[in-house]
């Protein structure tokens, strides 16, 4: 243990130099890790966006199918087909 009597400014300077060296080396490692994480996360983001786009399209399709199925059930085939054949394009509220 170095007590106050033996502690000198050169000791403090040595500690600071050692810490500077450790800090710089670790900062470079942290930078590499952070960079790898950014690359990895960017790739995952691209994949997630593509998956999101596909799922959104599937969801829209399912919504349309469900809407059509409900209309067919509620309006009855004849009335619905008549409207469809007339091509009014108007949906009943």
């Amino acid at each position, binding site marked *: *243990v*170095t*007590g*106050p*009597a*033996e*502690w000198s*400014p050169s000791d*403090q300077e040595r*500690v*600071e130099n*050692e*810490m500077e060296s*450790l*800090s710089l080396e*670790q900062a470079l490692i*942290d930078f590499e*890790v*952070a960079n790898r*994480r950014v690359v990895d996360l960017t790739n995952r983001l691209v994949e997630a966006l593509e998956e999101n786009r596909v799922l959104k399209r599937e969801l829209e399709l399912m919504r349309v199918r469900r809407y059509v199925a409900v209309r067919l059930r509620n309006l009855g085939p004849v009335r619905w087909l008549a409207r469809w054949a007339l091509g009014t394009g108007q949906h009943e509220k």
Partner: protein
Amino acid sequence: MKPRLLLVMTAYNGKDFVPRSIGSSTRVDDTECDVDILVLDDCSPEPGFSETIRALCGSLGVQYYRSPRNLGIPRNVNLGLLRALAGGYTYVVISNSDVIYPANLASGLAGVAASDPRIGSVMAWSNNVSVYSLPCVAPDEYLADQATVDWISGSLTAEFGAEVVDTPSGISFCILIPTAALPKVGLMDPVFGRGYCEEVDWSLRSQDRGLRTTVAPSVFVYHMGAGTNVGAGLVAAGHVTVPAHEKIIDMRYPRFRADLKEFRAHNPIHDMGDRAVARLVRDAAAEWGWVLAPAPRGPLAGDNAVLCSLVGSKARSAAIAWRGFRMELQLNGESPSAVLTDFFGRPQGAAPVAQPPTPPLRAAQFDTIYPEHV
């Protein structure tokens, strides 16, 4: 040859309390371990702070380093861990700088760590250490002085010896890590930015590698607490943590919250707390005496005696209080005075006051420089 221990104190501003913590660190007993102290100033912006701390450290033989840029707690802590590895230390203690250490810090924590090679970390016990706290009313008023912390820790050492309790996670307000664990577990993850939850992540990672996360009830450290972190902008006002960091923990360790809930339901720290308070009030009564007051009251200035009062109109129990620690003793219809005399092992009244020990060299030096912190 004694094991070597590096006590690393991370600091970010705090002129009012950091010198007190440094002074306290110089009193840590080095009979069981060779103790070196390193203060890591994370580029504190408070005017004059770094110059003052650097000068204080220089005069006390305490190592000091100020980062040229603010790193945040995880990366600042990592500097301490790396320094311990590079310097060949056996143990490293990572600590906040709003604490008061007991004299038995090194021997107590290192003693527990040496008892089992599977121990990856040992926390000190404290008035403020999240769910693992030893509850104390108004700790800043009652506990924030060196003699009290030394006395409490000594009393708890007599009660708990080398006992150790496993916990779901560690809190780095004051935690010892055997340096041998670092290559297995790694450093704190900088993904936690300016800090909070990095030690939870580290301790859960260490458990995944078969290491134990523990608390040593025989070592009591006073911890001022999170108010300093709100001031420093680490957490938002009204928060005690960083929600975004908690989400990272939830993602990485889906079982952690359930483990914590389970621990809280059967919290062994509560039982230890009951034992601890019973021991503290008994030891305090042996040293300073006890009084049965007609009604509950706070301690008077310089009053170290244990205060007892009867609870409720039928006086079924007695409330016992000493320096913010409280417990209740059932009287079972017997005379309060007789039950309390039996509990304390001595009759009501004052006891002779013990003389404080002589401080070690560095501590004496600190007392001269900073008399207001003694």
